[in-house]
């Protein structure tokens, strides 16, 4: 791995040098730098000394400072790649030489016998069978013990030149937070409008309609002669209206904050929603203590919505829900054995999940190949 890294760096240093005329192209420089930085990061991660910073945002556009650093890195890369990559090339090359020279030294013309240990010609089998394996063993030792530190040194230099400064990391974080906060506010506003609309067009309108019917009924009650059937009809309509208003109000309340969540917490609410699903659901709950209310609400809606999809669209005969929390993340997996092919664009279920999840800076992935199965995975940060 490290040998390959060093050889790759050497080759890339040569390519970089050859590409000198292209250095001033910012996009190219940034792309090239980002590639190498993630290579270097991988080498450092593999050797047990993790990099200080993952390469999120390495391709960020229009960042002058980042471009300047990438261009500055190019000559550094040429030098370090050549200097540190050359030993790897020599090492590998001489192993190859020894492997060929040891069994085949006699096949070369007398004046042009292969040489081991740089400059010792091989005149006979004794020399070939002692020096050849010795060279291979020594160089393998070099590859085993010397090249990895060289590779790490190269990677460190690369990362050091290219890595974020602290204030850049902060700037990036602020940019992300600003964006997600705007999304949160948008989602919150949309949610408020939806609630207002539901109450205004639903419950409130029904109450007005009921009041009108009761008003007419009250008026008609004193008519002489009284039309009992008319009055009775109005009262019946008003009564039905009250029942509908109550049902609607319940729906609105549930969509604002599910009462079961308030009463039983997230684990109780998930137990209830899975028990109520038309398809049998296997529920696995990890530790769900002290999940913030907003996260719990999104988790609940995600599972409820996903299970609605399962029973309505998937044709599944069984489903599974797994929910658990690590230190700072709540993860949810909802899967089913249905026919797959779930699509964000059909219906609003999955889109709704994405909207709610992204509002909390979480991630939602839907894996649903045609023919199934479907897996919805949601990760929500919950350790602010």
């Amino acid at each position, binding site marked *: 791995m490290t040998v390959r890294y060093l050889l790759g760096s050497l080759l890339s240093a040569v390519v970089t040098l050859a590409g000198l005329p292209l250095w001033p192209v910012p996009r190219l420089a940034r792309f090239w730098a980002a590639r190498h930085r993630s290579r270097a990061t991988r080498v450092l991660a593999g050797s047990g000394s993790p990099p200080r910073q993952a390469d999120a945002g390495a391709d960020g556009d229009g960042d002058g400072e980042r471009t300047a650093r990438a261009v500055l890195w190019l000559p550094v890369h040429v030098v370090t790649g050549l200097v540190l990559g050359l030993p790897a090339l020599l090492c590998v090359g001489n192993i190859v030489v020894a492997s060929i020279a040891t069994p085949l030294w006699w096949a070369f013309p007398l004046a042009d016998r292969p040489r081991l240990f740089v400059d010792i010609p091989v005149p006979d089998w004794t020399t070939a069978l002692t020096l050849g394996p010795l060279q291979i063993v020594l160089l393998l030792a070099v590859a085993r013990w010397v090249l990895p530190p060289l590779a790490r040194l190269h990677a460190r230099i690369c990362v050091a030149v290219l890595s974020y400064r602290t204030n850049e990391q902060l700037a990036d974080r602020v940019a992300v937070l600003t964006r997600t906060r705007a999304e949160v506010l948008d989602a919150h506003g949309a949610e408020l409008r939806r609630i207002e*609309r539901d109450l*205004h*067009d639903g419950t*409130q*309108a*029904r109450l*007005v*309609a009921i*009041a*009108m*019917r*009761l*008003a*007419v009924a009250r*008026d*008609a009650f004193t008519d002489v002669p009284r039309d009992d059937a008319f009055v009775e009809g*109005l009262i019946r309509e008003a009564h039905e*209206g009250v029942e509908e208003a109550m049902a609607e109000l319940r729906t609105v309340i549930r969509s604002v904050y599910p009462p079961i969540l308030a009463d039983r917490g997230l684990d109780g609410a998930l137990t209830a929603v899975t028990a109520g699903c038309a398809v049998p659901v296997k529920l696995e709950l990890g530790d769900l203590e002290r999940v913030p209310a907003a996260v719990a609400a999104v988790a609940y809606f995600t599972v409820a919505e996903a299970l609605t999809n399962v029973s309505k669209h998937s044709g599944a005969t069984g489903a599974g829900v797994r929910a658990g929390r690590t230190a700072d993340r709540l993860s949810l997996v909802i899967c089913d054995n249905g026919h797959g092919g779930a699509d964000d664009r059909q219906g609003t279920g999955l889109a709704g999940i994405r909207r709610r999840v992204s509002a909390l800076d979480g991630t939602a992935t839907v894996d649903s190949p045609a023919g199934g199965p479907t897996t919805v995975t949601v990760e929500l940060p919950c350790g602010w």
Partner: protein
Amino acid sequence: MRVVIAEDNVLLSTGLELLLGRAGFQVAAVATDGDGFVAAVREHRPDVTIVDVRLPPTFRDEGIRAALRARRETPGLPVLVLSQYVEQQYAAELLATSGGGVGYLLKDRVSRVDGFVDALRRVAAGGTAMDPEVIAALVQRAGDPIAVLTAREREVLALMAQGLDNTAIGQRLGITDNAIHKHVGNIFAKLGLAVSDSGHRRVLAVLAYLNAAR
């Protein structure tokens, strides 16, 4: 008396038809959006119209805008706007159109049939009907300047602002026309307003005063 209604909620429009039918009105048309309303007014030439503030397609203030549009096409067209919430701005926009015959009421008022029908007739006759809540908010905001009025005078002021005439105010408060006349005179004198005749002009004067007194 013929009425055109703009209301997209079937529950409410059937309720209104029922209620108006019993009160002796004839519902000529029920439109479910602003354009439909304007067209229906053009076609039926109603004596009075009832418009819900929120209508498709925007479900914002389509109703207000349709009402203003219809009044531009048919100056003096009596319009009673119904809303599920009170918004001063809407009342002000309606009052700003020339001529009388405007009303702005909470939908809740509909269930007090007598009061609602009174208000509708008043609007139809070129008068004004402002919701008590609109007026209460104005009176409350007016604060200091109307502190010079007695409690009874403030009641009379509020009812005047709602668009009631002296007789109706007297009935509402259970006092004689004469007493009302005296109260009204005192109010105008104390507030330094020129005495206006009964009707829309008086309402405008009182509302303008309340609006200015902040």
